[in-house]
């Protein structure tokens, strides 16, 4: 796939993009809503190159770690610090978020308990199978890319009658968040770059309301630099033609119809509810919770943390933290007065500086911002 990173090709695409943006007569602002897209842009130095070509890129709430309210992170910490003989299995991304009770990684586990970083929910399930005397809680956080795998794992656990496995869910849906950002009207967005792997599951249809009801063009893009530039070019083409649709610029990997098997699984195990997102507040139909038949697997219920979970979460940040505004695209990381001064990767005040997908961490690590060295 190195052709998709070839500088000559990227230069040519950037030139085309520059020409089209010039024809538009103004600087279009495009929002991507996927932390991995944010990463691609910065890791390869694309954002300044796009700015030079006359396109402004802005990040939306594409970081599941960042938008999960502190209360849910704190529930995970409570599980591993209060109960003995328990394994709290989590994706690496989730373990460093600073909460009022510190981070999951820094928490001191109860006797015989431990935090375990996993790459897949199946690793957690395997541990529960291997050690029937041990309680295993999987801290399941993610968007639609990750949710089907978690649903599958839940279904297997139920089918096998495992009593020592449960899932603490922090499951979020992208399309409702897009609607919330558009309805909030805080920033003007001229186009969207849709997340390619979320779309692998949900397909193109769930974004169509953006084109139809708001008249905003968008393109589903993959994750190589070339993929993203193809997406940007497609959005500009639509804008120039006065068209708004959901273009698929990642056809080599996904289809417009998405993955029906994955969606059916999600639907079997989970049901939507009005979840509270850090920085965006309560969004109708934006979260997933266990259906009644699977409620036995809900760690929130099993460990008496229902009051601390997403349903009734207090989504406020630690004092002074403006992650919420960053997540909504209202300010850039540099627009937060704490950015790179008091809030730095080794002393983060909010999740946007902690999560590998967090806009603030990405800007700090990869940005061309001129900072005084301290």
């Amino acid at each position, binding site marked *: 796939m190195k052709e998709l990173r070839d500088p000559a090709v990227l230069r*040519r695409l950037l030139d085309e993009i520059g020409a089209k943006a010039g024809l538009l007569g103004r600087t279009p602002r495009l929002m991507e809503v996927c932390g991995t897209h944010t990463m691609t842009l910065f890791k390869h130095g694309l954002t300044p190159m796009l700015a030079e070509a006359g396109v402004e890129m802005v990040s939306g709430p594409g970081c599941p770690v960042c938008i999960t309210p502190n209360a849910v992170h704190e529930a995970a910490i409570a599980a591993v610090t209060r109960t003995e003989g328990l394994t709290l299995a989590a994706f690496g991304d989730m373990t460093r978020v600073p909460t009022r009770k510190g981070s999951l990684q820094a928490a001191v586990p109860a006797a015989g308990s431990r935090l375990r970083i996993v790459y897949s929910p199946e690793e957690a399930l395997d541990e529960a199978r291997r050690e029937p005397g041990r309680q295993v809680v999987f801290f399941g956080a993610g968007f639609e890319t990750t949710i*089907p795998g978690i649903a599958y794992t839940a279904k297997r656990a139920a089918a096998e009658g495992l009593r020592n496995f449960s899932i603490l869910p922090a499951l979020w849906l992208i399309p409702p968040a897009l609607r919330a950002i558009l309805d909030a009207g805080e920033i003007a967005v001229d186009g969207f770059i849709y997340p390619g792997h979320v779309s692998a599951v949900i397909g193109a249809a769930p974004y169509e309301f953006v084109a139809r009801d708001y008249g905003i063009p968008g393109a589903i893009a993959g994750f190589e630099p070339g993929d993203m530039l193809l997406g940007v070019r497609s959005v500009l083409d639509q804008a120039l033609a006065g068209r708004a649709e959901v273009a698929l610029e990642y056809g*080599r990997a996904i289809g417009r119809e998405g993955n029906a098997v*994955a969606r059916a699984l999600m639907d079997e195990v989970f049901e939507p509810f009005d979840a509270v997102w850090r920085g965006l507040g309560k969004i109708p139909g934006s979260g997933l919770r266990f259906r009644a038949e699977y409620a036995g697997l809900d760690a929130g219920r099993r460990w008496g943390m229902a009051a601390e979970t997403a349903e009734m979460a207090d989504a406020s940040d630690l004092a002074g933290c403006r992650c919420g505004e960053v997540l909504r695209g209202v300010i850039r990381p540099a627009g937060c007065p704490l950015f790179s001064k008091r809030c730095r990767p080794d002393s983060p005040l909010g999740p946007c500086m902690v999560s590998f997908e967090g806009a603030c961490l990405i800007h700090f690590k990869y940005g061309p911002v001129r900072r005084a060295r301290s």
Partner: protein
Amino acid sequence: MCLAVPAKIVRLEESGQGTASYMGSEVRANFSLVPRARPGDWVIIHAGFAISIVDAREARETLRLFKEMAATDRR
């Protein structure tokens, strides 16, 4: 939140588990979400699950387009 890689299926087991090859390394993953996948197919793997089958024809077409763009630039 979309960190995933394209990998080629090497072996599928009854349980839905299997192995795929990515740049010479073997990855264990669950293929239950892509029941039509066969050994030799390329899939997108995220967090231990294959979530999509890569369309080999489209993939070749994309690469060809990019190769073309690269070639015409080097005169």
